[in-house]
């Protein structure tokens, strides 16, 4: 279950954990993919297919970046 309170509360709680920060990445990817698909095509079946393709691509790309940064952080 997505912790919606992450989007609502800030001052009354401590810093976000790493997992919470990662969870906030999913709405960002979904909305970015959908809007990209909407602006690239006109028909809904094509839009949804493009959005799904972009979501996978974004996820893969940012996942790779995450792995690289995470690996580098282990040397600090």
């Amino acid at each position, binding site marked *: 279950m997505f912790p919606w309170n992450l989007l609502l509360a*800030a001052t009354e709680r401590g*810093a976000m954990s790493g997992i919470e920060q990662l969870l906030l990445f999913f709405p960002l990817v979904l909305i970015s993919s959908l809007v990209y698909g909407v602006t*690239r095509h006109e*028909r809904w079946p094509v839009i949804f297919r493009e959005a799904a393709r972009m979501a996978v691509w974004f996820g893969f790309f940012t996942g790779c970046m995450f792995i690289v940064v995470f690996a580098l952080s282990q040397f600090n």
Partner: protein
Amino acid sequence: MATADEQSDELNDDSGIDLDLKNPYVAALLAWIVPGMGHFYQGRTAKAITIFVAVTMLFISGYQMGGGKVVYCSFTSEDLRWQFVGQFFLGSAAVPAVVQNRSLRSQQQQGTSINLLWNGFLAPPTSTVELNKWNRDYHSFFQMGTLYTLVAGLLNLFAIYDAYGGPGVWHDPVQRKKRLAAAAEAAAEEVS
């Protein structure tokens, strides 16, 4: 009656779709002011609603996460807010932020006591001490809120371009050639 192959082509390729973009400059301006408004003006209602809901939801989530402090315009040497360049593409947020910035800077130059407009709505921090306080109070939410509002602005840039020039697939050279060929064929059929 369309064959299965024709129906499949139609589902896979929307480059030949006929669109009336009306006045593209007006559409782009409306899309800048309110996400989806340009599409609404062009009669592309479903796209307008999708863009409005998606971009606005992302923006409000980010704004809320950062306690309403993450959207402001400031280009001083102490606080170079480069993220505002992305946020600028949401005009309804950008205009008050720019007005606040100009108002604050002129008050600082004149050396008068600082009186922020609209209870400080979208106002930049009055000093680096205040900016540090925001970062301390909102910690990682400040960065995440900034990211959300920045991405919302950049997504609206795509939407503005779509309202101005039509969907991206129209600008693909191969798709464009197919679209023009289909239009020429339709025109020739009409003449004959």
